[in-house]
């Protein structure tokens, strides 16, 4: 299409980090009034392209055009003046400032040169209501959950976007209702003639809102196409460059003989956090944990690992009563924990990939048996390969890896300690289909090797695929334990929804 006019366009963009080509002559055009999905595996270069389109990075080649005219963006602020609003993948906004200020930072309403707080808060309240959030805009953003912060980030970007709205994995921490609401807003913006870029690893969501799709692989443009001519398999094939048996849902084989009892929780709980629960976990078992966001899933994982201390009930390991009041207690007993909020709790941003992998193992070995560099390299290399971690080098700081690859590193960290019991909180969030299948396969393998796992996930299809048992959380309480036949999405939804059907899509 020779003289097609794009609202925002990237032409021949090249971006090189060190000696790694993150983007290789990528073209990307956005039409007004379309929702454009940008897809690709972890590390394909999606976030990098977004950062170039919004002035956060400078390209090493190629140019950015707005309405057909070349523009030069030195920083994200200039992108805002061009009417481009962005939710970056890793942006956490400012937890130390109020919700209203996070929404308006940089363009607060002023009166006599001073920020008009009252007006700002009034308008914030109106904006948030559109997203179904009834929160106090003058309160600190950091006091709210990841999901609320994500919505605030989206709301901010929408307010800033006069022409283009860019969303880099905005739905990773949202529940179904919130995703639905976001889609309504996207459709509304589209009707008003905005161009929307949408990056996600959830193909359902792509097919639900997008009109066109651009696929990147290893920094190269593979294809831009209208979505209605494509099937899901086409998309996956283009992303991976090969046919994969892509089905998380392998179904569980028939009831296997259970292993010995590893852990036994009785009336275990923590006031104002998790109601006391009973749970017996056997070796070679995967317990799936389902429930809405905020239902106490994460809190349960935290007290199991000692990240928060339980204040009632007891736990025994292989029949012996013990206390797990701190993570070090848990690690000593061979526990591992991949937290949900990997940015804040999981990674050591400035340490290398290698160090991030061996750190838990080193913690377990103690101060006096340091692993030497060769041993570290050997271990890190092994996991780098088996988990398919895409990094230019294992010595680069982990913060430079793409989001999904960071997740794989954290998983490797705990696997390296050769754990007996592993707790995974949303292990597949932000992970591409290839790695997704890999992680599901890993979970199955670990189970077969006799590990006990607790896996928290919002993806019902996924939990069903690997769990031998599923517990359902609702309002901080364990409300159901599902076995055998009952392990299917329908039953889980019912268990979650009980008494509050109307809240579920």
């Amino acid at each position, binding site marked *: 299409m020779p003289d097609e006019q794009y609202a925002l366009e990237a032409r021949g963009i090249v971006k090189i980090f060190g000696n790694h080509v993150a983007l290789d002559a990528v073209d990307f055009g956005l039409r007004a009034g379309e929702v454009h999905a940008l897809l690709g595996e972890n590390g394909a270069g999606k976030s990098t392209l977004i950062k170039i389109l919004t002035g956060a990075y400078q390209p090493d080649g190629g140019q950015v055009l707005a309405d057909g005219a070349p523009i030069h963006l030195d920083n994200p*602020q200039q*992108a805002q003046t061009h009417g481009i609003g962005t939710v970056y993948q890793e942006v*956490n*906004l*400012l937890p130390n400032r109020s919700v209203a200020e996070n929404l308006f930072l940089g363009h607060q309403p002023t009166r006599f040169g001073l920020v008009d707080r009252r007006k700002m808060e009034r308008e914030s309240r109106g904006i948030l209501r559109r997203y179904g959030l009834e929160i106090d805009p003058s309160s600190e953003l*950091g006091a709210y959950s990841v999901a609320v912060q994500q919505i605030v980030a989206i709301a901010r970007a929408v307010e800033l976007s006069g022409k283009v709205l860019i969303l880099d994995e905005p739905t990773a921490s949202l529940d179904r209702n919130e995703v639905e609401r976001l889609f309504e807003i996207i459709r509304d913006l589209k009707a008003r003639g905005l161009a929307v870029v949408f990056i996600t690893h959830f193909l359902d969501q792509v097919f639900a809102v997008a009109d066109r799709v651009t696929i990147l692989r290893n920094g190269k443009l593979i294809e831009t196409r209208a979505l209605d001519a494509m099937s899901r398999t086409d998309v996956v094939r283009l992303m991976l460059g090969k046919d994969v048996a892509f089905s998380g849902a392998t179904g569980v084989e028939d009831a296997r003989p259970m292993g010995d009892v590893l852990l036994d929780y009785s009336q275990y709980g923590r006031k*104002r*956090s998790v109601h006391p629960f009973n749970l017996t976990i056997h070796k070679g078992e995967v317990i799936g944990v389902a429930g809405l966001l905020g239902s106490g899933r994460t809190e349960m994982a935290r007290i199991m690992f000692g990240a*928060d201390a339980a204040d009632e009930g007891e736990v025994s390991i292989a029949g012996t009563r013990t206390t797990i009041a701190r993570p070090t207690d848990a690690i000593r007993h061979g526990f591992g924990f991949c937290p949900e909020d990997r940015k804040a709790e999981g990674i050591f941003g400035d340490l290398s990939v290698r160090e991030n992998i061996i750190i838990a193992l080193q913690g377990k070995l103690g101060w006096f048996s340091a692993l030497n560099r060769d041993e570290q390299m050997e271990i890190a290399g092994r996991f780098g390969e088996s988990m398919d971690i895409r990094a230019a080098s294992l010595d680069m700081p982990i913060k430079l890896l793409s989001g999904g690859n960071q997740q794989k590193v954290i998983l490797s960290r705990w696997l390296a300690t050769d754990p007996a019991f592993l707790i995974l909180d949303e292990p597949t969030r932000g992970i591409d289909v290839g790695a997704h299948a890999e992680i599901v396969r890993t979970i199955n393998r670990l189970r077969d090797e006799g590990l006990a796992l607790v896996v928290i996930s919002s993806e019902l299809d996924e939990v069903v695929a690997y769990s031998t048992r599923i517990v359902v959380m609702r309002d901080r309480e364990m409300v159901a334990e599902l076995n055998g036949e009952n392990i299917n999405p329908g039953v889980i939804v019912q268990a979650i929804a009980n008494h509050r059907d109307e809240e579920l899509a």
Partner: protein
Amino acid sequence: MSRSLRPLVATAVIFAIAYALAVMQFPSMFSTRVLGNFLTDNAFLGITAVGMTFVIISGGIDLSVGAVIGFTGVLVAVLIAWAGWHPLAAFALSLAVAASFGAGMGLAVHYLQVPAFIVTLAGMFLARGGASVITQDSVPVNHEFYDWISDLIIRLPGGGRLSFIGLLMVAVFIVGALVAHRTRFGSYVYALGGNPVSASLMGVPVARTTIGVYMVSSTLAALAGIVFSLYTSAGYPLAAVGVELDAISAVVIGGTLLTGGYGFVLGTFIGVMLLGLVQTYIIFDGSLSSWWTKIVIGALLFLFIVLQRLIFAASAQGEKAS
């Protein structure tokens, strides 16, 4: 109550209690005379501390302020006493010099990505060295303008006197509070201290804000130097040694988090007053060595840092549970 307010309230309460105790022992400490002197004697520290508040909220530190005070004092004295300038012209020039000095430090912090601690340490040696190169001795200033300013006082009932420099400090605090809490620049400063990466992706002009913060700090330090010169009627290259540490203490005691992102200009005011109170108490007592001031300030600092830790740790726990 929002958690960032809690340290401020704690400071205010401790100040009130400490003052009440002091007054119980020495009733004459509760007089307009003492209060007026409070303001006058701490004016230069207060003005410096306002700038330091901005720097610390932005996640930085400025070790050069004491040296800038000394340098400004010498520059002003030399311009007036040796070169025959009018004091106002000397003030204007020294403020401009300090502003560009601060801008230079800000540029280095932002573009060279050198830690603020190092940059401002270098700035401290530069300014102190520069002052000593101009002169090694104390240069007295005798100018009618100085006499005129020191006669500008408001008499309070009860024998107290509100001096020009005391009022100037109060004005700086008021303007500082407005800028910090009610302007876009202020919100950028907090943003930078909260998370510089997020701030830059949200469109905060990081370079301009960083440079601005160090300019504010150096300029206010120069203003403090002018005040110091009015207060002592002399310029001395080794004046105000260690004032940067007093200013940092006042800021931290005032509830500003040393790691940036949280704090109040008003808190710094109370912090300065609390330091002044300790000093006045020791003077009133008469039998205590003045080094007790340092010990008490040390203890206070420690107390406040522990307090902030507890407050922030406790509320982080609360969030996870909610």
